[in-house]
């Protein structure tokens, strides 16, 4: 990656981390659109408990510590690392798997 790309992705990653760790602290606790409609129309009670509801980060880390700001920050940071790692890894593999299609060619 050249310098221009490094700067772009460095800034991009910084924005993503700020979103996940800081902006997320100001998230509204109100139900989202679907949950709201389910409540209004009377089918919210058909929702079942999540199979992995006891996972350490379930509910964006709501049971990690007594400090909800810390929980959200930890969940946000780890989530960014995992999605970035998995996303980058998959696209890197896909690109390896099909190496020729986007190579610069005079005929295209």
């Amino acid at each position, binding site marked *: 990656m050249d310098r221009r790309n490094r700067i772009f992705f460095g800034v991009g990653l910084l924005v993503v981390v700020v979103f996940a760790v800081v902006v997320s602290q100001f998230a509204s606790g109100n139900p989202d659109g679907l949950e709201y409609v389910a409540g209004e129309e009377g089918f919210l009670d058909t929702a079942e408990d999540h199979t992995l509801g006891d996972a350490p*980060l379930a509910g964006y880390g709501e049971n990690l510590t007594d400090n909800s700001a810390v929980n959200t920050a930890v969940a946000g940071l780890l989530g960014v690392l995992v999605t970035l790692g998995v996303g*980058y890894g998959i696209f890197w593999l896909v690109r390896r798997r099909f190496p020729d299609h986007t190579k610069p060619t005079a005929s295209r």
Partner: protein
Amino acid sequence: MHIPDGFINGVTSAGFGVAAAGGVGVAVRKTGRYLSERQVPLAGLAAAFVFAAQMFNFPVLSGMSGHLLGGVLAAVLVGPWAGFVVLAVVLVVQAVFFADGGLTALGLNIVNMGLVGAIGGYALYRLILHLLPKRRQSVALAAGVAGFVSVPLAAMGFVAQFALGGTADVSLGAVLVAMLGTHLLIGIGEGVLTSLVVGAVMTSRSDLVYGAPDYRGDRTEELV
């Protein structure tokens, strides 16, 4: 927008699970045909951004919130097929690590936010871009408008799934009207965020934006 387990019956959920898995397989192949080496980091970053942005629920009216779906955003940046894969990655990570979105509902969610949101949304984006003046600024505007429309569209995906396999005995018409109304409002937030982020990337690195009219994949390096 993340459907939990239980809203939609097992047969319907399983059907959409198979459809989503097949869709991801197709999308991965199609992505391999066009994704340029330089876009790989952007695609990873897009997944991380969609995850991070989805943590931020913005208030909508009283007692309701909404969050970015990110389908149009990802699709404009890295193309519709990679955009679909981005949404699938985010939804799997959310369901497995954060208990957000049911495991049996994964296929339902991937179809609504990935297939409808990213691929359907990208088709909308191209259509809107075609109707706008041929200017660079049109990219962010078209992405914003497509982002706005993609939210009620994805909500209609849920309504269709609910019609097929909803477990509750409630009025479908009422669910449709409520989903449409609320998600038209949430769509405004989607449109604004999508437009801002696409605009920022267009300003700094328009050469990386797949949906930009003059995008040339890896050939840009050759031409520079």
